[in-house]
């Protein structure tokens, strides 16, 4: 019985990591790549850790370590993703050309990188860049490669 549960959980974990790595190659732009990788790898590693905890039910130290790793993984992974995505946006990494809308464009103060929450207030402060009317959405596929 336990073997079946272990098999199912670790298969799902391995598949989600596999899809994440395929997605890393196939996704059209940086943000989508980041988006796919962070979650799927968290889920996959988390499932493996749960498997390890189920595998050794008598050994408390394995379970506590698994729970601690899972806890820190869940806390730190989104923070890392947030920092990487923010840096990418500020340094001007283009979005995919079929991106529907970019509400973040023009909201940063150009010099201090202070972020506004009200679009009108931000528009007063920064004049829109005439070279990029669509925000950071790329014109062609070449830019995002």
């Amino acid at each position, binding site marked *: 019985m336990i073997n079946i549960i272990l098999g199912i959980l670790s298969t799902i974990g391995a598949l989600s990591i596999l899809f994440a790595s395929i997605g890393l190659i196939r996704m059209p*732009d940086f*943000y989508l790549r980041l988006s796919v990788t962070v979650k799927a790898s968290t889920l996959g590693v988390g499932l493996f850790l749960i498997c390890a905890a189920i595998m050794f*039910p008598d050994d408390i130290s394995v379970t506590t370590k698994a729970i601690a790793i899972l806890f820190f993984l869940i806390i730190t992974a*989104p923070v890392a993703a*947030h920092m990487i995505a923010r840096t990418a946006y500020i340094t001007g990494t283009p979005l995919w050309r079929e991106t529907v809308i970019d*509400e973040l*464009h023009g909201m940063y103060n150009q010099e201090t990188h202070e972020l506004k*929450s009200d679009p009108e207030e931000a528009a007063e402060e920064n004049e829109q860049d005439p070279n990029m009317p669509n925000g950071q959405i790329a014109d062609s596929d070449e830019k995002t490669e």
Partner: protein
Amino acid sequence: MIKYFLMNLLLSFIWVALTGSLSYSNFIFGLLLGFFVLWIMSRNEYDQRYFYRVPKIISFLLYFIWEMIKANLQVAYDVMTPKYFFRPGVVLFPLSAKTDLEINVLSTFISLTPGTLILDVSEDKKALYIHVMYLNDPETFVNSLKMGVERRLMEVLR
């Protein structure tokens, strides 16, 4: 609230000590037993928040796991099929969460749901900027997020 939680822990430790086997299933059983005992003992007490909040936290976690599995399947399907179905976009999400803790927990949960990724929090803590993978209409997306994750989270945290 914290008093009840500590009493619950104490009861489960007593249960573990009495039964004499320190395994996780036994500890969790002790927690459940302690919760039940405390619930019966404090039916006439004024402060009942602990007993409402614990089931809500558990149901929130189950809801979150369910959402995560659903969204992961969708992304996996998209990765494997040759055609792209994404309509990505960056959306402004007006926050009703006020304190740092609430914003932190909310953004962690949004980032861990596949298909959505926090880009940044505005300086005055009034808006989140979210990168969404499947965006049909920004307003419906913001509304569904408000009614789903944020409402449930506020119920737990407040």
